[in-house]
């Protein structure tokens, strides 16, 4: 499947959303899929299943910390993005992958698990809880949206993320702890290395032609 890769760098959440919507239309028109990689300034995104009690501070307190809040059209509950977290938005035509939301989510999980294996981290699935997990802690969050079988939103991998920021929320509505590649390896990790490995694993799992 033809695919182009674009690194958006550090980009505001709403700008990245607009880029995704633009490519959703373009993928429908020209069939060339797009894999977007980026980081976001600190932001909380509230998915369609978000329960208010999963914000552990008031909106005012959160905004005072310089963290924006957005209601968005993906599945799942609240999550946090911030610098040091690699966010990947696959704008893929799911008619190529069986028109199956669960199968797509499972493939994203496998990409995440394979990526972490490249860092000698053994991550697993957690039944009924989408994402990738290491020792009971969540390291990769996944939530997607689909329009006319074109995907948007995607996955977020904690690389060098400041994990203290997650204290503002119950991530994904769960009483869980988050972890990162850096905290597991005991050192900061090259974001470029993670991006390169992420691309490699997407190419393999989704049979992409770059």
């Amino acid at each position: 499947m033809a695919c182009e890769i674009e690194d958006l760098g550090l980009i505001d959440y709403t700008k990245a959303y607009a880029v995704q919507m633009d490519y959703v239309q373009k993928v429908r028109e020209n069939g060339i899929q797009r894999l977007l990689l980026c980081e976001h300034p600190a932001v909380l995104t509230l998915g369609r299943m978000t329960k208010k009690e999963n914000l552990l501070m008031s909106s005012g307190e959160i905004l005072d910390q310089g963290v924006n809040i957005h209601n968005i059209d993906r599945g799942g509950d609240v999550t946090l993005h911030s610098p040091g977290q690699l966010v990947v938005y696959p704008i893929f035509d799911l008619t190529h992958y069986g028109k199956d939301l669960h199968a797509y989510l499972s493939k994203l999980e496998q990409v995440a698990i394979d990526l972490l294996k490249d860092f000698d981290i053994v991550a697993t699935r957690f039944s009924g809880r989408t994402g990738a997990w290491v020792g009971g802690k969540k390291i990769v969050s996944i939530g997607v949206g689909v329009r006319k079988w074109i995907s948007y939103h995607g996955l977020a991998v904690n690389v060098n993320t400041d994990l203290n920021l997650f204290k503002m929320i119950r991530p994904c509505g769960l009483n869980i702890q988050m972890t990162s590649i850096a905290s597991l390896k005991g050192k900061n990790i090259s974001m470029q290395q993670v991006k390169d490995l992420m691309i490699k694993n997407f190419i393999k799992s989704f049979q992409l032609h770059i």
Partner: protein
Amino acid sequence: MSQVLIPELGEGIEKAVVACWHCKVGDQVYEEDDIVELVTDKATFNVSAGSKGVVKQILIPEGKEAQIGSVLAIIEAST
């Protein structure tokens, strides 16, 4: 008249929740218009009108869960 159904969303997915309607009764819609957003645990899915016409009836309100294959709305054909 045409029916807008909750489509097959994948193996093991039997239900979806209507997250929000992008139209209301009486609206003119076109085949390609996304008229309703469904949500199933970690994914949202937008359903298109499928035909040109006027929205005659909305059968499943926001926040309600329904089985795959359920009728979401009825569209009366227009020229």
